[in-house]
């Protein structure tokens, strides 16, 4: 971690790693989509709609994983003042929000044919919706200040408060759900997944994870460039001011 604390070294390393991540994402996604859409069998109950799973499940996993990335980045920014951790957290958050939105959207599209409804106030769905709101609140807070440094610190405190709250929200939503409705719609029996479906699923997980890494690196690189150009602008204004 500390080897990466030097922005110049990070930029050099990121530039070297990026093509490999992009290539890995492309290979895994191509293989995963081929497996998921063509090779893997249709489900005996759900038919062809089961193929939505190959996008839906990795998105849902990544939506939670990326929030942990944001929280870990925020923690190391606040505790060790790691100069790149806040860049990573801020760069990761919109990607996480996009994966959360994708999990919700694909879930709705999948729910319509299998459960007969676009949306149920089920514990899982509701928790993911709250996760989306947490992402949006974080992004809004980070961008709400004229001083980006201030937004980074406020956002970091919020991300940590959110991560402490997530288990409580999850638990209370579960409790609320069992109180309100019996779990009838979502009780799809989940037998151990067959390898013909597991292989494409894992390929898609790997592909989307590599995609996340690639986009994260690109977003971090551009954030660093923005930061550098802002610093240069400040220096330029400062010298111009002293001359005048």
């Amino acid at each position, binding site marked *: 971690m500390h080897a990466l604390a030097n922005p110049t070294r990070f930029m050099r390393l990121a530039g070297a790693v990026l093509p490999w991540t992009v290539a890995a994402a492309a290979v895994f996604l191509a293989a995963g989509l081929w497996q998921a859409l063509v090779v893997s069998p249709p489900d005996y109950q759900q038919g062809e709609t089961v193929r939505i799973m190959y996008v839906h499940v990795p998105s849902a996993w990544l939506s939670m994983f990326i929030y942990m990335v944001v929280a870990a980045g925020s923690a190391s920014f606040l505790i060790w003042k790691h100069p790149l951790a806040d860049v990573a957290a801020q760069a990761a958050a919109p990607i996480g929000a996009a994966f959360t939105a994708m999990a919700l959207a694909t879930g709705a599209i999948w729910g319509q044919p299998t459960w007969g409804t676009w949306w149920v106030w089920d514990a899982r769905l509701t928790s993911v919706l709250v996760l989306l709101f947490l992402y949006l*609140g974080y992004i809004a807070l980070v961008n709400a200040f004229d001083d980006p440094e201030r937004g980074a610190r*406020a956002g970091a405190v919020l991300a940590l408060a959110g991560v402490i*709250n997530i288990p409580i929200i999850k638990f209370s939503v579960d409790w*609320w759900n069992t109180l309100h409705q019996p779990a009838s719609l979502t009780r799809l029996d989940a037998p151990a997944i067959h390898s013909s479906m597991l292989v494409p699923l894992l390929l898609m997980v790997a592909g989307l994870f590599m995609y996340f890494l690639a986009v994260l690196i690109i977003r971090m690189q551009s954030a660093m460039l923005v930061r550098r150009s802002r610093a240069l602008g400040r220096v330029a204004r400062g010298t111009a001011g002293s001359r005048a």
Partner: protein
Amino acid sequence: MTGFFAIILRELRTGLRHLSDISAVLAFFALVATLFAFGVGPRTLGDLAGGVLWTAALLAAMLSLDRLFQPDHDDGGLVLLILSPVPLELVVLAKVIAHWLTAGVPILVLAPLLGLALQLPEGSLPGLLTGMALGTPILSLLGALGAALVLGARRAGVLTALLILPLVIPVLIFGVAATDPANGAAPVLFLAAMLLGALALCPWATAAALRQSVL
């Protein structure tokens, strides 16, 4: 400790000097409840009364948060509070207590009246009041964190609501559950547990947020 009580007294005094703030929060609380009555219609209102009252209370509590730290931030008093010998965590706690006394307690007092108007079922009132007595301090504690985070931000009011409302969903869930006598004591105990947790953690997080707001 004298500093702690002095801050509570000061906050109460300034709060009572701006009585119109408190009455605006209460009017908003009553107005939201009335809007629900119009929106839902009188027939099904009784079943929804607990949820309506809690939602209205959450929204009203959001409205009162900007006066927690914003005036001190604007006139520079916040720096003095941070530099004062009283630990900032205790300052936050004192301000939260004063905020609860001037925003939470009035909501708590008005709630039974609105409950009558919304045809809250007979047995629900004790649960509603115990729930709110435990829940409104949590709103003040979490709200203080939100108010501290948005100091100096653009559109701070909307932002506080966007940050805090997702975090108070558990309070809403257990608060509404407490209004149903069939649920027994469990929701009240959960609310009490959340209050203790928030009491232990929120002042530290809020103090951290305040410190970084003036760096």
